């Protein structure tokens, strides 16, 4: 046992996060783009948004989910490339093969992000830091791409760590140091605290985890509902979530940003019909079981970028359900609609689920 392995009394979890994955692949495949601000996303003229951009573009204030139009305003030289998701998936699948060399317990978070539980791995003298270093080196050598890694004894801290020294670096927090480390972490980094909750925290003068320590468990439940219970543990660096190897799909959705804003109910209903077909096709092509639906939802983004989503309990995926949900919530179009989305949540009750006859 190496000296370093004494630092690990509990689990050893590595979080790998690829650095500006889509943009890096494009730059690798076209070296002329190197040293230029590059983004991947939809065209500015077609109301596209950025999926990612390289670090040079980030210096201009560009970020993912920003509209391409705004991106070109902020950085007129930015090169926006179309999304080639099939290519990124191929690369991603190859990179995941590297992870499998180190552990069988891999939880993909997205196409460019994964947790690896290396608690039982004997490689590198059982040292997770060395394993992360090797994984990153392999990715760089084999694919010409860089990744950042976070190493700790739970998923929360590992994820925060991978962001700590980005890009092309890694950061580790040992068990005994977690409570010290988490104190000064911004609440923004805690899963579940999005824009709205962070505003709420800011109004209460709480910006970092330690600012929240005075709140009791019941205070947090009063403030954030049942999530407050989880939050109480997270801000103390306590996270017992397992690295789940069989990632269960929780929801399926499709959405579309329109070339021209929608200004009346009928044109919205027409688009809902098109989106519905897209949703069904997606379920069929991806073999998604539609037999265990918990609820359906719609998402509406207005031209001032306000986003609302509405959901209702439903067990069936019928177009009328979506139309009703839309009609019940949108009586009149008060402002033009820029984007519509449809989707459904799948029942996560692992105790019982009905097997589909055509789709086992």
């Amino acid at each position, binding site marked *: 046992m190496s000296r370093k392995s004494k630092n690990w009394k509990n689990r050893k979890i590595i979080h790998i996060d690829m650095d500006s994955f889509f943009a890096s692949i494009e730059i690798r495949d076209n070296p002329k783009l190197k040293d230029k601000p590059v983004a991947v996303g939809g065209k500015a003229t077609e109301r596209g948004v950025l999926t990612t951009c390289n670090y040079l573009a980030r210096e201009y204030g560009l970020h993912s989910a920003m509209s391409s139009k705004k991106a070109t305003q902020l950085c007129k030289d930015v090169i926006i490339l179309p999304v080639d998701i099939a290519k990124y998936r191929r690369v991603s699948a190859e990179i995941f093969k590297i992870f499998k060399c180190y552990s069988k317990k891999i939880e993909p978070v997205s196409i460019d992000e994964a947790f690896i539980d290396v608690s039982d791995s004997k490689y590198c003298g059982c040292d997770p830091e060395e394993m992360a270093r090797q994984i990153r080196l392999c990715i760089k050598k084999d694919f010409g791409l860089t990744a950042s890694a976070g190493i700790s004894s739970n998923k929360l801290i590992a994820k925060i760590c991978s962001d700590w020294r980005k890009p092309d670096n890694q950061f580790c927090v040992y068990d005994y140091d977690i409570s010290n480390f988490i104190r000064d972490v911004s609440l923004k980094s805690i899963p579940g605290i999005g824009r709205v909750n962070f505003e709420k925290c800011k109004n209460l003068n709480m910006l970092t985890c330690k600012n929240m320590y005075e709140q009791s468990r019941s205070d947090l439940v009063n403030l954030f509902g049942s999530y407050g219970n989880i939050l109480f543990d997270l801000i103390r660096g306590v996270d017992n979530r397992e690295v789940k190897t069989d990632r269960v799909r929780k929801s399926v959705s499709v959405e579309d940003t329109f070339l021209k804003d929608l200004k009346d109910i009928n044109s919205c209903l027409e688009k809902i019909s098109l989106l519905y077909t897209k949703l069904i096709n997606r379920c069929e092509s991806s073999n998604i079981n539609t037999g265990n639906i918990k609820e359906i939802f719609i998402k509406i983004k207005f031209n001032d970028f306000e986003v609302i989503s509405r959901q209702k309990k439903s067990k*069936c*995926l019928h177009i009328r359900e979506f139309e009703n949900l839309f009609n019940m919530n949108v009586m009149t179009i008060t402002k033009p609609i820029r984007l519509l989305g449809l989707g459904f949540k799948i029942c996560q009750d692992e105790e019982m689920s*009905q*097997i589909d*006859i*055509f789709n086992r």
Partner: protein
Amino acid sequence: MRVIYNTKDLLDKIKNIAPTAEAKQTLMILGNLAFNINGNSSHITSSDLEIEVSSSIECDSEGDCTFTLPARKLLEILNALTDHEKVTFTVLESKVDITAGKSKISLPTLPASDFPFMDPIDTENMTSVDNNDLTKIIHKTSFAMAYQDARHFLNGLHLCAQNGKIVSVCTDGHRLAKYVSDINCNDDLSIIIPRKAILEINRILTYFNNNSDNLITYSYSNQNFVIHINDFRIISKLIEGNYPNFNKVIPESTSAEITVDKKTFKTSLNIISKVVNQQYKGVKLTPQNNSMHLISSNTDSEIGEDQIDVKYDGEEISIGFNISYLQDVIDVIDGDSIHICINDQNSGCLLKGNDDPNSIFVIMPMRV
């Protein structure tokens, strides 16, 4: 102009025609029944644009005319007027006065010319069908039709040909029912009749007490299906699309078989069902050594258990099922005992009755 009906006869007709007209219609006229008075015959029609149900009734009238009346309202009014033998409709320009004795109700009408009658279907080549055969087709399979499934072709009853006989198949993706009837047919038969049409046909058959003297004829085209049951006519659009290959999901071979007395099984499931989880309705069956353990529970920590005698000599196995799916099959399967043929916890199981050679039922398990 006045039209006089026998109240009870009219009520009986309206009870079977009105349900097609839905209360919440996008077009107001679809909430109405169309009356076409021709001499002493009155033809009444309802429609939801997919299905049209109509029938004729005798009346005393002063001449020919057409009008429409709100279906549900009329049904309620006639239900309230049953003490009166006769009911009189006085048809005015934009309203109809309904009078019985000294009671009078005026209802506004919509012009019959706006009523969306479906295109007439060729009724010359109608094929007659025995009441019992038709009843069995519906009874044995329709319970497994899907309801508002995204796979629209599952929301109906599929009729196709097998060795010159009509085969009926329904599946909602969780269970499947197949029945081979005694009715001869062309080899190219392959249609899907929408769920609502099947329910309407079933209602009218029930109204006639599934009488074997019923005169039933049917016909179909590429788009439509028409059936006459005595003096009722139901026209329905067919569901477009291909029905999935159901033979592929009927297990060809199974590894073990549980034989259970139907009555015992039914009683046991009925007891267990009192505490079943209302959302998932799961019951776990564990057969072992000629005995079967049944258990279900719900989120209120209520647990139901039972142990029944069965014939089973396979390995111990636990399989979960939706209890309603089992009960539905028990309700339609013929014979004293049921053979439950299984493979494993994730594969469809086959249910057969000992006196039901023409029916096959498949139920997919639940992961419990």
